[in-house]
């Protein structure tokens, strides 16, 4: 993850999957938006002036993962990380670990798996126009 940015006005893509609600420009670059909620069958994150996205590099892909709120940055010692639950549905499918801070458990996403799964679900045959 490189930075958290404000999401500008979205340009929607025709015939795009629901988890790809559109693109926006940030510092002259056109960035695709990934809505994890839609990917795991939850409600869409509403895009408002206050909406933020985390810019993520995963291999060849650069995406803006949209979120309802950014609560801050926490440091969790690697040795204290716990394995994710064994469920394979919903967001649990995309967890790499569970961390803890003074407020409780924090689910840590495996962003590389999440982005690759999104791409694979969009074009199951491995096609696409990259």
């Amino acid at each position: 993850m490189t930075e958290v940015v404000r999401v500008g006005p979205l340009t929607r893509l025709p015939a795009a999957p629901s988890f790809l609600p559109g693109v926006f420009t940030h510092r002259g670059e056109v960035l695709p938006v990934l809505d994890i909620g839609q990917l795991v069958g939850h409600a869409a994150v509403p895009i408002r002036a206050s909406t933020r996205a985390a810019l993520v590099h995963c291999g060849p892909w650069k995406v803006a993962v949209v979120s309802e709120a950014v609560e801050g940055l926490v440091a969790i010692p690697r040795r204290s990380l716990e394995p994710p639950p064994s469920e394979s549905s919903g967001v649990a499918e995309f967890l790499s670990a569970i961390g803890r801070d003074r407020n409780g458990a924090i689910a840590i996403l495996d962003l590389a798996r999440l982005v690759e799964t999104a791409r694979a679900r969009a074009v199951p045959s491995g096609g696409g126009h990259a």
Partner: protein
Amino acid sequence: MSEATEILLFQVGPRVFASAVFDAVRIASVRDVPAGELVVGSPLGMPFARERGIVVETHEHGEQRTLVVDQVLGVRQVTDAELHPLPAFAAACLTSGAVSGFVIVDEAPVLLVDLPTLVREHPGTASKRAA
């Protein structure tokens, strides 16, 4: 110095799109085009009205089809710096090859549409016409 490219801006439903000017053979009144050659519904959306069309060469046996749009907004010159490819992740998630990138118009990305690919992929009600 950046090269200038001419783009055609048009509206389908509530959204504005762009295409390379040379993709459009001519702008037509839909009333002058046989119904079988009209492309009414496409991934760009459904036009509110059915009065204006962009005649496009499909590059298949000399066929032409007419994409029905709401408005042709005009031609604009843009520099290469204002043209952007489709982001790799978005390109990998789209099943259509008709979106070729974006052009920045008034600081917002406007979809750049490959019209020949669009009308080939979504022939609508078009029927074949001899070359």
